[in-house]
């Protein structure tokens, strides 16, 4: 799952020079992930993995890094 999400982010949403070097705790928002990108990311996760992520938890704390996103998803699987 982690690899699929990573591939989606760097192929569709966000340009970085070295996607492989982008760590799980590196900051996606500082790297430039914008509001539309966040929405696409959440919808991708919901659709691809068949889970529902609550709107009221759509906070930077849950989305700032790949690691945090992974942990947020795990809480709702």
């Amino acid at each position, binding site marked *: 799952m982690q690899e699929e999400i990573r591939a989606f982010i760097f192929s569709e949403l966000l340009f970085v020079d070295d996607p492989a070097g982008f760590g799980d705790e590196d900051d996606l928002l500082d790297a430039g992930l914008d509001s539309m990108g966040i929405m696409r990311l*959440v919808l991708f996760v919901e659709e691809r993995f068949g889970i529902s992520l609550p709107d009221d938890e759509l906070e930077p704390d849950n989305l700032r890094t790949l690691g945090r996103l992974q942990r947020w998803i795990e809480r709702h699987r």
Partner: protein
Amino acid sequence: MTLQRLNPADHFTLMMDDQIRRSGLAGNFCALVLQLDGEPDVEALRERARDFPRRFPRAVARLRRQGRRYAWDSDGTATLPFHLHELACDSPAGERQLAAIVNAAADAEAAAPLELHLLRGPGHAVLALKWFHPACDAKGIELVLHHLLHDDTGGDDAAAAALEGLLGRSGLWERVRQGWQAKRNIARLDRRASILPEHGDGEPGGLAVRLERFDAGQSRRILDQARASTGLTGTALYFIGCAMRALLEAGAGDGGDACLVPYAVNLRRSRALYPVFGNQVSFLFAQAGREQLTQRERLFEHLKAQNREAVKAGLDRAMLALMQAGSWLPLARYGDIVRRAPRGRERSSFWFSYTGALEPRPAEVAGCRVTDMYQVSQVTAPPSLGLLVSGFDGRLTVSINYAARRFAPDWIDALAQALRAELLADAA
């Protein structure tokens, strides 16, 4: 460079160019305006302008008609127009000079995709990048600025074309299905007649621009309000909702049940430096009925839910399929379909664009620091009104673009004041 056909979003903006001209305005010309803290090195800038078409031949291409379609034609040998002006001392005169630049008409097939205008004044200057919208979009012009000032990258990479890539992923029948999905969505929106700004019917009289600037503290407050009202994913929706309410407060025209606002969706990856040319956008609609417009928080919740449903249903991608189909229509017919609901009423209450912070941010322009930035865009008349929101150095600017003779100055004042109050949540 061989002939390169316009992509569906380029063709959409060419259709808008045709509509803008038919209403008596110059055409679909826009400008990215940078204020500089001194007089830049003109020769250095001129040299960069000379070099730019070698890397980006599209910057000096011209439109060529091929039946109902259009293509860019360039051998890359033409030069990028670079105009030097003396900047008028007082601010209103300077604004009139900029208005004259963006109101200068050229036939679509003779129009330069990009022109540089440097206005020099004592101790300061203004650099305006005027562009012809079929050539690129608002994000694209920010990338033009970056590549104009930097050598660190190669030429425009056709393989990075975001829009063509997305279209290429769908087969014919998938695109047909998407096109119908988009058409059904528009038919649903058309059940409610759009609220239009109260404007006169005379000659439009050229584009005028009113700037509403917000200092760093005010801008922070606005973005905090946006976060609180529309969440992480809806900054543009906050501006749209505030503008809808401001429109009603300033005074809307003859009736209408709902505000309907089209807004562009950038299809590039965030922070990507390519593609530069070609419009890489789709669009979505925000619609809110009078009953929703009366309550701020309810309005934002509604716009957020509507946007989420639209993205979830893939409507932004579906609009691409519809634009692709539209590319085969004569421009006038296409324009009529896009602009008017079935009963002939104008569909859009106003045009809107949120470009966010200038990205990448230029450290300097030929030896000068950039002190401010805003965007300008021609509009169709009616609705004769477009709102462009941009940010620079933590400060937001709302550029109110309107057909000069269609609105009374008092009405524009009322709109600007209502918008300020809404954005700062003074009216909440």
